[in-house]
């Protein structure tokens, strides 16, 4: 059965916001212990795809299997269980602002385990230590810099030792050194713990450094999906535009353009 081969299996995913089609027949697979990088221009639907993988949104059609279970039809209890083996670091961190970062990291453990308070605290400190935030556990998110928030969010994502990690723009807004450390950490998580990792990113250098596979989205469709080398050497023009930061040519007819401007 294919469920045994892939940690994530997306088939023919179609998603709308209102009447606008955002994802149009997206299919992709991510193997266990693999790092998949999702790239694409702004507004191409990367975050939307991620939200669907996390079952935060229900697709119009298509199926999404995570760790062998179809999350589009899963019951609430099944999702609840599944989510304990998944960690997510959101683009803006999304730490609970009413809790210190130590409490933020401890929260999943408090909610899902019956561990002793002292053990939970030690675990939380340990996770913060991993992202070089040891000793900061008493600060509130509002007292942290943007980069520290990102790292704290990563620590929280790792709190439950998940089988799978999702990152939305992990290195955007980080200084080059920290960003490179983060890449190393992502690779280490895969190599030592066999974590399956999905990363949405704009940073080309980081993408090629960490990726086993890369999927490039464009206007809600998959432009190309394959190993880093296949993508690098692709002859597709839009892919090369993205890789070489070329500005995109206008791809709309004069009539359509006029129509759009006049709002008709």
């Amino acid at each position, binding site marked *: 059965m294919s469920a045994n081969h892939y940690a994530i299996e997306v088939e023919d995913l179609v998603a709308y916001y209102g009447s606008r089609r955002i994802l149009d027949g997206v299919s992709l697979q991510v193997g266990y212990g693999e790092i998949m990088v999702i790239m694409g221009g702004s507004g191409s639907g990367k975050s939307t795809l991620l939200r669907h993988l996390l079952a*935060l949104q229900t697709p119009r059609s298509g199926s999404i299997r995570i760790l062998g279970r179809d999350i589009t039809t899963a019951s609430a209890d099944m999702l609840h269980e599944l989510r304990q083996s998944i960690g*997510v670091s*959101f683009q803006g961190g999304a730490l*609970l*602002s009413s809790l210190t970062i130590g409490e933020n990291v401890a929260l*999943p453990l408090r*909610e899902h385990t019956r561990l002793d308070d002292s053990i939970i605290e030690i675990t939380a400190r340990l996770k913060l230590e991993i992202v070089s935030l040891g000793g900061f556990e008493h600060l509130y998110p509002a007292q942290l810099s943007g980069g520290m928030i990102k790292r704290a969010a990563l620590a929280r994502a790792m709190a439950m030792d998940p089988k799978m990690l999702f990152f939305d723009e992990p290195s955007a807004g980080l200084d080059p050194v920290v960003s490179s450390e983060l890449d190393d950490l992502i690779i280490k998580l895969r190599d030592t713990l066999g974590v399956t990792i999905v990363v949405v990113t704009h940073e080309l250098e980081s993408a090629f450094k960490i990726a086993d596979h890369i999927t490039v989205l464009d206007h809600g469709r998959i432009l190309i999906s394959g190993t880093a080398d296949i993508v690098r050497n692709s002859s597709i023009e839009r892919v090369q535009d993205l890789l070489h930061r070329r500005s995109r040519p206008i791809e709309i007819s004069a009539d359509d353009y006029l129509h759009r401007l006049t709002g008709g």
Partner: protein
Amino acid sequence: MAETSFGSVRGRLVQLGRAATAVIEEYGYWVTLLGESLYWIVVGPFKRRPVRLSATVAQMVSIGIAAVPIVFMLSFAIGVMLAIQGIYTLRQFGAETQVVLGIALSVVREFGPLITGILVAGRTGSALAARIGTMQANQEIDALRVMGIDPVRFLAAPVFIATLVMVPALTLFSDLAAMFGGAVYCQLELGLNHVAYWDQATSFIVINDVTQGLIKSLVFAVIVALVGISNGFAVTGGAEGVGRATTRAVVASISYIVLADMLFTYFLNR
């Protein structure tokens, strides 16, 4: 020409339809929210996912205990006003001493619950919409969800428990404070001593009057929680959205409270 006017009529109908759908959707959401909160309160402990006690206590403190001074002040003032008006009215019939009856009944049946409801709507309705709305805007709600922490259990259920306990409690307190305000004024104006005042008052009030006030206060509690929380969860569009939700929560919950009060007063007194 004909087509344009038809078009505009159709446009209005479409607008009306959309507005109606939005309203029905909102009420539908209230039912879901209330149902889910009750579900977590009742079933949560058996699924090892109880409503957090610490959050419930924190909500009780901020909804109930922190409101005590303002509830006292306003209720006391209302009691004094009722005494002034009552004495003025009754003096025309030479029946000033009957004022205690008027104060007691209108406080316990109407003003205690109403003033408490409106105060809680202003304090708690806005705070809820702002807090949950900010969390929604910052993706904190999404983060809770993907951590397997149900936002309704985590955020909404403690609020329902807290309002359902604290609003009736505050209402009883408000009743006492308003009666006290009346007592102070009656003593100054009529020389009626406190013992006589409370004696009269308690002999007039029957248990039904108090229950009526408390039933209303339970309804107000649910209204404040529902309107505050649902507006918070519905926030879209950043800080501006939070501001809109906050204003909307206060205005809507006060309006619903006054309307519900009217309906309940009508039906409970038939």
